[in-house]
């Protein structure tokens, strides 16, 4: 039986073979297996050199300097370090945070935990296209706001927020630090960390053909404003300038470094290749009728398409396509019952439409045939389910 068409690249990507080969060289006795913190011998030096090369690769890919890269286990840890790190360091001067209802759970859950600890959090509502207007951020800022956390590219609908304008607003307010979850934007749209005016940015390797289990938090060293400070959350060796203790996994960061370098080099050509494929996909799905595109199409990355289908139930839709198509649904399995996507509900979709959505994530291997196959699979499933429901 042939494998399903993989259109879930927004969830994760396969490791690029070049990345995998570079990682493998760090694992065995013949390779750079040493502890990068072991400065007393050549094995450690070799690993440390690779770690610093990777740090430079990641930094160069997003317009940062190497000293601003703090390795983490992924974007979730980076988000936690940013949010709790700022909250705890600046807690004496303010206890208010601004974020958006459409953020990833890796931002929302830390914010909710801080609320339980007495912090106040303002959750901004997006417009119908999923965009947060910078003026909303300005209006939400208070004298004691110490953190604004707004993602760059939304993981469900792909819309790109106007981070530069939001950063300007935060800078004018003075005390509010800006954290940006960029897990979905790296490799999909240009990032210029130095000029955006962002204080903290979370990155992930496995969304850009790197390995799972590694990411980074970019911590601005200043430039346009006073450098941001963080309270560490993990102790035990002083690695990563004391912000993230623990032996750095050489193979993981080497993989991330190469993946980011490759993604940056291919960014423009991939965007130009994938954008027409996404439109082909959308046109094919729209022809079914009762297909609603989620998210502002004018302000989105070219790799992602989210569509709700009228007249079908979400769990059945996913079950009907899953043998031939790997996509994500607009609902989360919190138990046997599914929960409608909070992102789509924030855009104003009702529960049924939020649940009956599919997220298509296109990637480097996606071709016209994949797109046409996906349209055929979804068309068959939607038509059948609509007939079954008398819609």
């Amino acid at each position, binding site marked *: 039986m042939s494998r399903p068409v993989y259109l879930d690249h927004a969830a994760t990507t396969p490791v690029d073979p070049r990345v995998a080969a570079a990682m493998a060289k760090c694992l065995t006795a013949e390779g750079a297996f040493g502890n990068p913190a072991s400065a007393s011998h050549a094995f450690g030096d070799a690993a440390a050199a690779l770690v610093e090369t990777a740090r430079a690769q990641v930094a160069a890919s997003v317009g940062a300097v190497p000293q601003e890269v703090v390795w983490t286990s992924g974007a979730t840890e980076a988000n936690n370090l940013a949010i709790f790190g700022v909250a705890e360091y600046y807690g004496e001067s303010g206890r208010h945070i601004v974020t958006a209802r459409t953020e990833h759970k890796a931002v929302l859950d830390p914010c909710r935990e801080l609320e339980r600890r007495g912090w106040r959090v303002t959750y901004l509502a997006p417009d119908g296209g999923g965009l947060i207007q910078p003026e909303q951020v300005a209006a939400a800022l208070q004298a004691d706001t110490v953190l604004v956390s707004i993602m760059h590219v939304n993981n469900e609908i792909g819309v790109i927020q106007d981070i530069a304008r939001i950063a300007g607003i935060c800078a004018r307010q003075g005390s509010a630090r800006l954290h940006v979850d960029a897990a979905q934007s790296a490799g999909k749209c240009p990032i210029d960390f130095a000029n955006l005016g962002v204080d903290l940015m979370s990155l992930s390797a496995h969304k850009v053909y790197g390995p799972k289990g590694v990411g980074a938090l970019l911590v601005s060293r200043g430039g346009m404003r006073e450098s941001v400070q963080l309270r560490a959350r993990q102790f035990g060796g002083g690695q990563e300038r004391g912000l993230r203790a623990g032996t750095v996994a050489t193979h993981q960061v080497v993989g991330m470094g190469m993946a980011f370098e490759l993604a940056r080099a291919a960014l423009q050509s991939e965007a130009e290749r994938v954008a027409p494929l996404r439109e082909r996909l959308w046109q094919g799905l729209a022809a079914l009728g009762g297909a609603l595109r989620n998210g502002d199409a004018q302000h989105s990355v070219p790799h992602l398409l989210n569509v709700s289908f009228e007249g079908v139930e979400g769990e059945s839709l996913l079950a009907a396509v899953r043998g031939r198509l790997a996509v994500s649904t607009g609902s989360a399995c919190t138990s046997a019952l599914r929960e409608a996507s909070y992102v789509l509900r924030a855009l104003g979709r009702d529960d049924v439409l939020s649940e009956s959505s599919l997220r298509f994530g296109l990637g480097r291997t996606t071709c016209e045939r994949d797109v046409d196959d996906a349209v055929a699979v979804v068309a068959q499933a939607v038509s059948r389910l609509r007939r079954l*429901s008398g819609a």
Partner: protein
Amino acid sequence: MNYNEVTLEYFENTPAAGVLLGPGTLRGAAGDRAHGAWVQFDLRVDAGIVQAARFLAFGCPHTIAVAAWVAEHAPGGELRPALPESVAHLSERFAVPVEKRGRLLIIEDAWLACVRCGNH
């Protein structure tokens, strides 16, 4: 979500899907699409015996599969205010998670609405 074999079989093949028209046809429905589950049964009855059954359903694979099974097994039985198999047995046969047992009650309600239609 994982489904057992019988659920997958009836979800994918949906025997007895559709509607019945004409004299002697009873129709009953329950649930609400806006709340995620809706089921309709059509029964053709002669001398108190179900001759033919069809269903329509909007809902999860368990809802569709159980409704299909009920419609397939109804013909030949007496028209009575009970499903061809109890909700408890259907729940076991289709390995319906406890959180979704309410969907089976919607199927039962649709059946009962059909029977009430016949009694009137």
